[in-house]
Structures are given as structure tokens and as C-alpha cells.
């Protein structure tokens, strides 16, 4: 029986890996991935960028938010193979030259994380929201950040941190 199993394992077809080129946090990389690997899993497991979090894995919590070609997206609801040639920024790429991003500083100042699990997605999402330029009031910020479900008490502090950075940006 055991021999049969070994033979059948040997006769398995080779898995259809695809070559994917990505620029992640300004570094170019080439990956060999299977078609069914999500971008989230490729970032975390192939590139060892574990800052992007796997929360619900069904597009409902926003913990996996990354910025892809300038837009915030959910890395759990796309396949790595579909993003061939894309430029991606994860939480590991938002600081510049050892200097924290203003949002990272504001999150610390406002105590905007408790367990911190949703934080990378919240920060990437807020950066994407700033680039979209649609959230003008606090109510609009809350609405346009509602795809990031923080389930703890930090949410008001998160919004405070975002509003502070927004105000700094409008004074620049």
C-alpha cells in the first residue's frame, strides 16, 4: 500500500507555477507562485513581509490593506499572479530613511492601537484615502475608513490620528 502511495505521489503532475514580477516597497522582486496564491499570502510567506495582516481573509476587515499602483486594495481578495508588474507599498515601506511616516507618529501620539493587529491596514488605508482626496470632514473620514474594522476601543483614537495628519497636510 505504502509503495502504491509513493508511486502515485511521484506521478503527480508538476504544479503550474507562474513567474510574477513585483516592485514591493521600491524593491524589485521576482516570485514563482501558484495561480491560487493570494497577494496577501505571497507578501507574507514568499517575501516575508508579515506587517500586512491576515484577518478575516474574506475582504471584510481591511487588515490586509496595501497600496497597489497608488490605490488602496485588499491583498486577500486578489491573486498574486494578477498583480504582475504592479508597484506595491506595504506598512514596511511607508517610513522613509528611518523616519516614521507622519501617520505612524500620530498613531503613537494618539494611542491609536491596542493590540495593533489592524494598525498596518489602517495606516495603509489612510494613506490611500489621503491620495484619493475625497474625505474632507470627520464624518467623511469615518465613512471612507469604514472598510477597516477595528473591533477595539482604539477606533476614535485612530480617527483622531488621521484628522491630525490631515490638518498638518492642509497647512503645508
Amino acid at each position, binding site marked *: 500500500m505504502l509503495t502504491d502511495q509513493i508511486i502515485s505521489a511521484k506521478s503527480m503532475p508538476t504544479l*503550474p507555477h507562474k513567474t510574477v514580477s513585483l516592485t514591493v516597497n521600491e524593491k524589485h522582486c521576482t516570485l514563482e507562485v501558484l495561480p491560487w496564491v493570494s497577494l496577501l499570502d505571497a507578501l507574507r510567506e514568499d517575501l516575508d513581509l508579515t506587517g500586512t495582516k491576515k484577518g478575516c481573509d474574506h475582504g471584510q476587515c481591511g487588515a490586509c490593506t496595501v497600496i497597489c499602483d497608488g490605490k488602496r486594495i*485588499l491583498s486577500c481578495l486578489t491573486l498574486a499572479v*494578477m498583480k504582475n508588474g504592479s508597484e506595491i507599498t506595504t506598512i514596511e515601506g511607508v517610513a522613509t530613511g528611518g523616519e516614521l511616516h507622519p501617520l505612524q507618529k500620530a498613531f503613537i501620539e494618539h494611542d491609536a492601537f491596542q493590540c495593533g493587529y489592524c494598525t498596518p491596514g489602517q495606516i495603509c488605508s489612510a494613506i490611500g484615502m489621503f491620495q484619493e482626496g475625497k474625505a474632507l*470632514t470627520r464624518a467623511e473620514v469615518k465613512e471612507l475608513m469604514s472598510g477597516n474594522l477595528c473591533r477595539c476601543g482604539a477606533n476614535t483614537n485612530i480617527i483622531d490620528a488621521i484628522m491630525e495628519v490631515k490638518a498638518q497636510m492642509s497647512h503645508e
Partner: protein
Amino acid sequence: MNNFSYTQAKNRDDAIALSGMGPGSQFIAGGTNLIDLMKYNITRPNALVDINAIEDFHAIRESANGGLSLGALVTNAATAYHPLVEQRYPLLSRAILAGASAQIRNMATNGGNLLQRTRCYYFYDTNTPCNKREPGSGCPAIEGYNRTMAIMGTSEHCIAVFPSDMSVALAALNASVQVSGPEGSRNIPFSDFHRLPGNTPHIDNCMSRNELITSIELPANGFSNHYSYLKIRDRNSYAFALVSVATGLELEEGVIKNARIALGGVAHKPWRVKEAEDFLQNKEPAAENFWYAAEMILKGAKTFQFNAFKVELAKRAIVRNCIMALNPECQLPGAQASA
């Protein structure tokens, strides 16, 4: 998720040819619904044909009849925030922005929005029967927890609702869907695009297997002066509608010249009742007339154990939304176009 092969289509003809390679092949665009369904093991394609590289489907263009043509691959966000959509079809902008989350709207495409599948709990739970997921297996929703389910156009086989917000506005706007397949291209009026469940609830729309949506066509009249989209849901944001209403009104000297009212969250497709829209013609835009129209729209409602509340909810939502449509400025922020 099951294993599958993956191919990228270069153009429309290529996509149609690739999709004909096997019965288990599926197109993928934004993937926000399809990948989720695949993770739940509800959809198990053996081949994915990625259509994102088809340049032609990425544009919003003005059409010869004064309307707009929305490319199938333009994202929901890019459509909602497009200056021509915001100016001429603000109802569509509002409806799109009332749906999903910013991240999902950045990924989801116009064509995919129309093809998303129901969020019925029983459809999503592969441990239960579901006629939509597995034809002939039964519908536990009818005798089950049916609070979110349909009250119009149901059958003994299915009481699921169609979840798209965008489609409710497209129904009110009399849009049409341009599709292409091995037999050529055709234009489908929006009211004919989605199907009622009948005996075949597993078939959501009238497209055949190898066809794909190329664009959504909007007629010239966008009801940009008097419009409103109202979405009633359990959570104020990022939830599907219990009931939603898209209203477009044209007024002339204080009288309604043209009224459109479409409901979401109540049926297997966006719901319109022509009799009610006709009734409003040449009437004053007064609450009692909107109440009368609402009664006409909900006349045929059939409720189940937990969703009878939707009838009264829908009537009140219709009246409130028609009143809000008179002065779109009074709509609350949230599902709002850019300033």
C-alpha cells in the same frame, strides 16, 4: 480554494476564445466576489481567464446619443468619482459609494458588480442545501432565518436577494448592458438583464456562458437635478441593504413630469413598478402621492416569518427618498460625491 489554471486574455476575441476552452472556465476582473466565493468553495473553476489587460474596457466615453458608456473594467471608485458621472448621473455615484468599502470599490469593476452573487446565508454555507448553489437541493431560507431575504418576485425554490447597489441606480436610469460572445455583440435593457429565480434560481442573469460584459450604456437623461439613493441597513456603513431606494424625478413648474423608483434588497433583481411611476406623472411632488406610489409598488409583496418588516420599511423608505430627491442637498454625508 481549488486548484485552477490561469491565463491572461489580450483582447476581447482572445477572452471569448479562451473561455470556450472548457465548461469550468470563468472570467476574472476585480475578483472581489469571485475569489471570496472560491475561498468558501462555492465556486470551483478549473480555469480562470483574467480579462484585466483588455485596454478597450477601461474607458468611460461619451456616446453619440448624449449618454455615457461605462467600460466593464473601470473600477467602481473610478466610475463614482468620474467628473461626468458626478455631474450627469449623481444618483449612480451615490449608489456606488453606498456599497462595499473604499478598498473594494478600488478593485471591483462595473461588469463584475452586475455579476456578483447573492449574499444569502444559506448560499454561502456549503453545509446547507441551496437551490442556487446546488440546483434541486432545496431552500432552507424559506422556512429558516429569512430576515434579509426577498419579498417580491420569489419562487418556491429561492428567496435570495441581489446585493448590488450600483444596479439599483442603473435600473432607475434605464441603463443597458452591452455584452459580447462567440455569436457577436448584443445590448440588453437593464430590466431584462437579471432574472427572477423561478425554477432555475442558479441562473442569475440572461447572459450565456461564453459572453462577457463589455460596457454599461447610460441614456442621456441622468435625473441630475432631483435624485436620491437611500440605503437602509443594520450597520451605517459597509453592509448590504435591507432595503434601498433609487429615485430620479423630473419636475416642471412644480409638477412631476417623469418619475423613476427602483428598490434594492427586496428581490432577485432591482425592482421597479411602472404603474407607480406612471401614477406620479403630472402629480404634485407631495408626500401623499409618494405614499400612494409606495403602496402600489409593495402591493404584490409576499413575506416570510422574519422579513415582514421590510414591507413597511420599503414604503417609508420610498416616501422619504422621493422627498429627499426634491432637494438632493439634504442627503446625509457618507455616500456622497466629492465636493
